[in-house]
């Protein structure tokens, strides 16, 4: 496909998301200083030596941001991947198998969804040991209820179409029907949801860290960095706003990419127009 067919908005999204991803993957090489290294005074202003200044303990803020990107995106990507695989497979299965399996799953999901996610997360995380794996599991499972709802609704519609009936008459197994007949046709709404869910995962993680139940010091994600530096705002120090802005820019750029992917996948001619 020709590069110039990609719209400007998608370019902006791709470049920004790419930059974030690059920082996250190559953090130790990109960052000028170590993650926990104290290099100067507390809350130094921006300078040639420290592009974004230093934080509440005198650590280089841009290095912290880059390591923070790594932690934030690692956990958010893993949680989104978990919520999507779990939610969509269970949702599709519920639609295809129907009967008691569907009822049981759907009511269980209703039960989970009736509890506010943040409160549920806080309760679980205050009991369990706080590490990356627990965070991913808690976030992934709580988010998968939303994905389950969506994929079940989409799959129920597709499941009654003639081509699925034709596959059943051919004698195809449930796995073929779920992955080869339903999944490709359910992809468009799921991709749109993927972008939104990833961002919700970032926001959820940030909220947890801000409340002190997410990523634990000395590591820190962006939400945690807002928390660390929030007292500086009173003194007119912008250190807390920088990670907050990063969260916002990531949210927007990922959605720009998701929009573009969605437009491409809705074409029924294999994207060749």
């Amino acid at each position, binding site marked *: *496909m020709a590069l110039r*067919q990609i719209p400007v908005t998608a370019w902006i999204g791709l470049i920004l998301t790419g930059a974030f991803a690059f920082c996250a993957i190559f953090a130790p090489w990109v960052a000028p200083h170590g993650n926990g290294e104290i290099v100067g005074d507390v809350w130094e202003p921006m300078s040639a030596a420290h592009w974004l200044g230093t934080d509440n303990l005198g650590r280089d803020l841009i290095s912290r941001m880059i390591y923070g990107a790594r932690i934030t995106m690692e956990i958010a990507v893993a949680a989104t991947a978990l919520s999507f695989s779990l939610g969509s497979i269970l949702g599709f299965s519920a639609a295809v198998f129907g009967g008691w399996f569907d009822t049981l799953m759907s009511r269980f999901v209703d039960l989970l969804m009736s509890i506010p996610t943040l409160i549920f997360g806080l309760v679980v995380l205050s009991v369990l040991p706080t590490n990356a794996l627990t965070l991913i599991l808690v976030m992934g499972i709580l988010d998968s209820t939303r994905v389950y709802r969506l994929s079940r609704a989409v799959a129920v519609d597709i499941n009654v*179409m*003639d*081509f699925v*009936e*034709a596959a*059943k*008459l*051919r*004698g*195809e197994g449930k796995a073929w029907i779920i992955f*080869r*007949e339903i999944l*490709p*046709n359910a992809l468009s709404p799921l991709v749109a949801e993927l972008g939104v869910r990833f961002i919700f995962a970032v926001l959820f993680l940030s909220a947890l860290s801000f409340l002190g139940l997410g990523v634990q010091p000395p590591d820190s994600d962006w939400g945690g960095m807002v928390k660390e530096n929030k007292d500086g705002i009173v003194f007119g120090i912008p250190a807390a706003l920088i990670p907050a802005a990063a969260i916002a820019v990531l949210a927007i750029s990922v959605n720009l990419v998701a929009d573009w992917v969605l*437009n*491409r996948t809705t*074409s*029924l*001619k*294999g*994207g*060749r*127009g």
Partner: protein
Amino acid sequence: MAGKQAKTRPMADGQASSGKLLDIRNLRIEATVYPPGEAPKTITLVHDVSLTLEKGKVLGLIGESGAGKSTIGLSSMAYGRGGVRITGGEVILNGRDIMKAGPRGVRALRGREVCYVAQSAAAAFNPAHKLIDQVVEATLLHGTANRAEAEKRAVALFKKLSLPNPETIGERYPHQVSGGQLQRVMTAMALCSEPDLIVFDEPTTALDVTTQIDVLAAIKDAIRDTHVAALYITHDLAVVAQVSDEIMVLRHGRLVEWGGTRQIIKEPRQEYTNALVSVHEIEHQEQQPGTTPFLSVKNVTAAYGGGHVKVLKNVSVDIYPAQTLAVVGESGSGKSTLARAITGLLPPEQGTVTFDGRPLANRLADRPKEDLRQLQMIYQMADVAMNPRQTVGTIIGRPLEFYFGMKGRERDKRVAELLDEIEMGKGFIDRYPAELSGGQKQRVCIARSLAAKPKLIICDEVTSALDPLVAHGILKLLLNLQQVEKVAYLFITHDLATVKSIADSVAVMYRGEVVRYGSKSKVLTPPFDAYTDLLLSSVPEMEIGWLEKAIKGRRMASAGN
């Protein structure tokens, strides 16, 4: 219709007195399409079509889908459906160019001078309002009569259209009357404001053949008695021959032929018209049933909703190798349910289906792969019967892989052979269903079922969604394939012309029962039972005056009446 002359209308100049009601000159209609990833382009749907219609006359517009019939019909109300633009020509109605009338002028004429009758009345009525409120709406809106007068007029029209209980039927909601009745109520709605012109857009296409004849007769009488002019849009030449004075044949947005009804039917001048007129002729020698059927359905009873709604009652039929059993009947007669019972999608409550001398498992899930391979199915709607995300190669190749374990080059070779068999060729292998025409889609579905090398293919209304010429091609293909592959068909249809051209034996179904069953010649030879007679006499024939003869000659009222 005394109020007719009293109506006064603004006239541009004196030219309206010539008796021409509608004069469309060099009409050009365009639409902009937005192919993904390409620059938007403008396509022309109607190329320089001109027509005139006199007061009280009926002009039939006929052609296959995409011919521009509806688009032209709607232009007489200065309306372009779904982003379609009228970009050239003049539409002169009652002496003035309505393209220049402006939004207010157009609103004043729609529903008063021109009314519209849609194909699907069920979708066109608002389900939240009573029929009478919708019938008189346009009349009240234009202020041509007060409520009491309008309702009186509506009841008179209900009577004229021979609706049951004309005084009270208006108090019902759209879902409380049958499809055929609803279509007549819609005609009453169009006539209620006493327009000069009605556009009928395929008004009987969605109806059963036995219901169609009543609606057709009602529309014809109403047109005659009210002296309204009409544009009658349809793809069925036999239908249009019954109601119109003149016929215009269209193709790809261009005029093919325009003439009197008799001339078009008896002496078509253009090749395309000739093809439309002579479409039903297929040579098929009826075969006598062999000694043993390979599939027999014995005393099958089936029901939906846990046994509450019986849809099949004690049905027995036999299918012989390489022969065609046609199952005919109107909608709701249980034809498709019979197919579902045979395939195991709906396990029968009683009775058995035997295949090659042994009983088939009732439930689909209990049947071995080999039994599934032997019974294949082709659907009415080819577009939803194929996964839109799979290429033709995958669609046809999957049964090869699934039943015979073919892979790679061997599979591709067989797919190419099958594509040749359905007269399409291997160039289509990488196409997606959305890149095929309606007829090609159905051919791919045929290839998919043939790939399994089955003994029986169940064809569920496979031609009814297609244009007549395309359907003709599909039927010929099916017959040829039967010769080559020695496959039997269970052919479900409501179209008796199709039955006549391809069946060896016929089962007539009515309300879940087989009312007549035997070889084609036996079933289609008198004496008939009352239902078969009704069914046979309801099939429109391309003959002027057929409608009156058919109505007079029948012995049983149709169910939708």
